[in-house]
């Protein structure tokens, strides 16, 4: 057991240490966070990227003990800024074999800081299944054999009882059966419904034989440089969220508006991208955002200090699961647990979404996998026999649930599906492979039909993080972009993706939720300044973000992931056959968009390397030395 002293001179806004855990030896120690490290890498994704780059060599595979799994928060976590419970996970991921940056919220960030750490770095592999227990500066690996097989919610329930805690006294971030069985798209789920789901970070955790991280809400205070400034900037951001676009919409309804908002532009994926026509049986009035919320008994379930009407719990009103408490799906959940494979019964989708969270799988990839299976079943590339008796008919939620169980336990064809959509499709090959939605890096898109939303397709393909890297452009003029962005313009799209690069890296380093930072980067930088006392400007924030992006890019090149993989699969990059985006295609413009993107991000078009001048500017001489000799 590690017992640490209270720190007295940590940088303002920080607990002051990363918890290092070597699972092979069982050793735990503190890695102090000094001013320089904090200032240069901020937290979360920034610190994670640095550690990953420094400590994970080219020959290390995602499931090697030498891989690192970093769960870190940032300086705003635990402060009154909305959504300040943030967790960012960085590792070499199971899907792409490259860098990962994936986020969850809840209370991770607030609780771990109150227990004395800013993050956790796992290395090695444990002999036995363990969970990491953290409380008031102490940390301990404990036997987790009794937790094996439990889903993520059961794991938290069980630890509540075992530790005699309840409600927000304890945060548990765990893997479900999917992570235990090294499902390549397993995520890490925490606090009932918050999932860092991308790039198989849950499989990495499983490969290390860590079932869960249990963090008691401790009593170590967070000192900030300018408390009044912290309240003021939090109030400013909250005010903007409440009153101005784009935050206002998230403030009011979270992401519930996505289904009806994306359908008219052809951005809603339906039946594995085989169509963009809404199914006749879908009652779209039930999918209006307020209808989605009021269609269930809903309960607030916000993350730390968050005032958004975003995260909720639902109590299912009718059907076989009536009375069940589930997590209100995000837009991505409505799609991945339903629309992507043709299920438009919102009650079934809601329930299925939580089953994915409980099992610990990425709901996006789940959607693409099930959609693909159902399409293959319809086209007879897969038979009922192949699927162990499951009749995988479009939209059949029972079949989808059985497939979930099958892949989480790797039974039968589940063993193939467990490898993720790209590998499963390659396994089957032929016309079945052509039906699958993925990128050549192995990742799969979010729950949008990117054939209508080109920036996200480009972003997904060029990303170094295993998912969207730049994200949507919030307040684009701030970054030198026009206000009106044309999402099907071969010129606008790469500019948008390129000039936004770095913003998400910064947001994912500060310990908050990116929805609650749907404001100017300048306002975010000011909030970080109030906490840390360092005068971050918008340009500083983008600089730090770009730096993190360059580290991740360099890490991916080291891992053998280069520009040749930056394209969509056949289906993902296909031309919509119907609906609002019928006939629109990225294919003729793809090379042009890549050319433009590379030029603007200052990476070498051929090799993918960040250019030496950029690396000089980013003060990354060691990266320059590695990449350019």
């Amino acid at each position, binding site marked *: 057991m590690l017992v640490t002293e209270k720190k007295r001179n940590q940088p303002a806004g920080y607990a002051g240490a990363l918890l290092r855990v070597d699972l092979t030896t069982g050793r735990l120690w503190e890695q102090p966070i000094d001013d320089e490290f904090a200032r240069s890498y901020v937290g979360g994704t920034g610190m994670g990227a640095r550690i990953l780059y420094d400590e994970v060599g080219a020959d290390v595979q995602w499931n090697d003990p030498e891989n690192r799994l970093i769960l870190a928060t940032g300086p705003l976590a635990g402060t009154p800024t909305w959504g300040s419970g943030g967790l960012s996970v960085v590792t070499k991921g199971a899907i792409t074999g490259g860098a990962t940056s994936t986020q969850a919220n809840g209370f991770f960030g607030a609780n771990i800081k109150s227990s004395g750490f800013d993050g956790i770095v796992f290395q090695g592999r444990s002999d036995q299944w363990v969970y990491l227990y953290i*409380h008031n500066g102490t940390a*301990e690996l404990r036997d987790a054999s009794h937790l094996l097989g439990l889903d993520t919610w059961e794991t938290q329930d069980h630890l509540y*009882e075992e*530790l*005699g805690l*309840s409600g927000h006294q304890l945060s548990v971030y765990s893997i479900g059966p999917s992570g235990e069985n090294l499902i390549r798209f397993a995520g890490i789920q925490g606090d009932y419904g918050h999932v860092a789901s991308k790039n198989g970070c849950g499989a990495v955790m499983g490969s290390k034989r860590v079932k869960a991280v249990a963090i008691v809400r401790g*009593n170590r205070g967070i000192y900030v440089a300018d408390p009044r400034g912290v309240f003021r900037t939090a109030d400013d951001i909250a005010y903007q969220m409440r009153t101005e676009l784009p935050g206002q919409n998230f403030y009011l309804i979270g992401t519930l508006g996505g289904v009806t908002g994306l359908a008219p532009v052809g951005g809603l994926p339906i039946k594995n991208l085989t169509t963009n026509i809404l199914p006749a049986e879908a009652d779209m009035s039930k999918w209006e955002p307020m209808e989605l919320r009021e269609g269930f008994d809903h309960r607030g379930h916000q993350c730390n200090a968050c005032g958004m009407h975003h995260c909720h719990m639902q109590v299912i009103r009718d059907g076989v699961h009536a009375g069940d408490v589930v997590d209100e799906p995000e837009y991505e959940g409505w799609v991945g647990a339903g629309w992507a494979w043709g299920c438009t019964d919102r009650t079934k989708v809601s329930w299925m979404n939580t089953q994915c969270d409980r099992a610990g799988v990425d709901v996006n990839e789940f959607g693409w996998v099930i959609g693909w299976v159902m399409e293959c079943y319809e086209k007879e590339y897969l038979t009922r026999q192949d699927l162990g008796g499951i009749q995988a008919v479009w939209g059949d939620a029972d079949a989808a649930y059985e497939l979930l169980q099958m892949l989480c336990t790797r039974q039968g064809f589940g063993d193939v599906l467990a490898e993720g959509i790209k590998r499963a499709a390659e396994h089957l090959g032929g016309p079945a492979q052509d039906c699958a939605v993925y990128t050549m890096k192995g990742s799969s898109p979010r729950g949008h039909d990117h054939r209508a939303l080109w920036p996200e397709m480009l972003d997904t393909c060029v990303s170094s993080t295993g998912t969207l890297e730049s994200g949507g452009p919030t307040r684009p003029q701030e970054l030198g972009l026009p206000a009106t962005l044309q999402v099907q313009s071969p010129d606008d799209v790469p500019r948008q993706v390129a000039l936004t690069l770095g913003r998400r890296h910064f947001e994912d380093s500060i310990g908050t939720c990116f929805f609650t930072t749907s404001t100017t980067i300048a306002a975010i930088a000011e909030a970080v300044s109030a906490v840390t006392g360092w005068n971050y400007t918008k340009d500083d924030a983008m600089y730090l973000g770009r730096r993190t992006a360059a580290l991740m890019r360099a890490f991916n090149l080291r891992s053998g992931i280069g520009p040749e993989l930056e394209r969509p699969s056949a289906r993902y990059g296909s031309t919509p056959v119907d609906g609002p985006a019928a006939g629109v295609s990225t294919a003729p413009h793809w090379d042009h968009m890549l050319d433009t993107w590379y030029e603007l991000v200052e990476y070498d078009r051929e090799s993918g390397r960040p250019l030496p001048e950029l690396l000089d500017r980013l003060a990354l001489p060691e990266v320059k030395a590695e990449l350019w000799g």
Partner: protein
Amino acid sequence: MAAKRHVIVGGGTAAINAITSIREFDQGASDIVLVAEERPYSRMVLPYYLGKRISRSHVWTLSPDRLAALGVTTQIGRRATALDTAQQRVTLDNGETVDYDDLLIATGSSAVRAPVPGADLPGVHSFWTLEQADGLIAEVKAGSEVVLVGAGFISFTILNSLVKLGVRLTVIELAPTILPRMIDPNGAAIVTRWLEQHGVTVQTGVRLNAIEEVAGRKRLVLDGGGELSADVVIMATGIRPNLGWLEGAGLEMGRGILVDDHMRTSAPNVYAAGDVAEAFDRVTGQRALHAIEPAAMEHGRIAGANMAGVDRAHRGTVLMNIVDVLDLEIASFGLWDDADAESVAVEKPSQWAYRRLLWHGQGEAMTGAIIIGISEHLWATNDVGILKGLVQDGQPMGAWKRAMMDNPWELKRPFVATGHVGRLLQETVLGRPSTPADEVNAARWVSPEAAALAAQTEV
């Protein structure tokens, strides 16, 4: 008509509360005479004085100014030696007498030393009065070897201070476990381990046979041949109510003075409160001696109200104690030691956390509890007070009883969901519906003379 004369004998918590209650209700319409051996001070704060956490001036309670403001006439430094209930007269140690219209006996208790040879040697201390505290402070030095005889509540209240003063401490206890009148053996085992981990030696089941003076130090001879050596010995072996002066007064006595729910003794116009009063226990409904500060407070307030002519009945006091040992909190409530109870006990060894919940006669109302935990953990919950609320309210928990037996760590949900808050909000010791700020000014009543004086001095 002459103003009614209240005589209060004793200057501790019960007396102070009686005086302020009388004044709260009569607004100065009566005479109050306070007879106290010493200038009133708070016994509860003496351990902090010992530990040099507070100044000596901090121990005083009713200052001369405050007494004047309350309109109290004092006989400080006088001891009552006899009571004549027929004449309604108290005799003092200087032979003077004081007549009363009504009388409150609040003479408290005294420390008792184990009856062993050498118990009265110089360097053998009790810790109960301010004078005794001063005596101990004069002798305890960093590095002193100190033996605390008795591992009860009083011992434990000064244990922190002694450790912080840097003494080398040994605690011996006759009973098989420490804190035998406060926690069960499971809890005692946890506290013992904690003490040992913090460098305090604990010996239980040990009888002290004699204390000897050897070359300026004390030698404690133990039953069975063992011995301990010490610079300072503190005898914390119990207390006894101060009832000697009442011999022949004819009051009905049990272990203390028997009182009814108005704190009335068997004699007309004579009340008793605090350590001397054998009053009602809230949980059992039976009379018991509760030599605890909250009982003295409640008794005093009830007695005061009734003496002021305001009829107030007392529902009894919940027996409760809390003490911390080097930031390990230990508390118990009600019938924590009830052999005829259904109970559940749980422990988190790595957290030093323990609790036991008890349900008398397998009933549905919680009747007792023990809670132990590290301060910084325990006070991050509402659990200490909630346990008190549960025992105090005494309402059946219905199905929640099972929930609490299953998971005694979660108290707030059963407590809140069963409506305890709503019921408790109706309850006050003196039965007032509410206390807005202006009524509190009444509680801090000031005589017109004192107010006038204060007004002058402000100018």
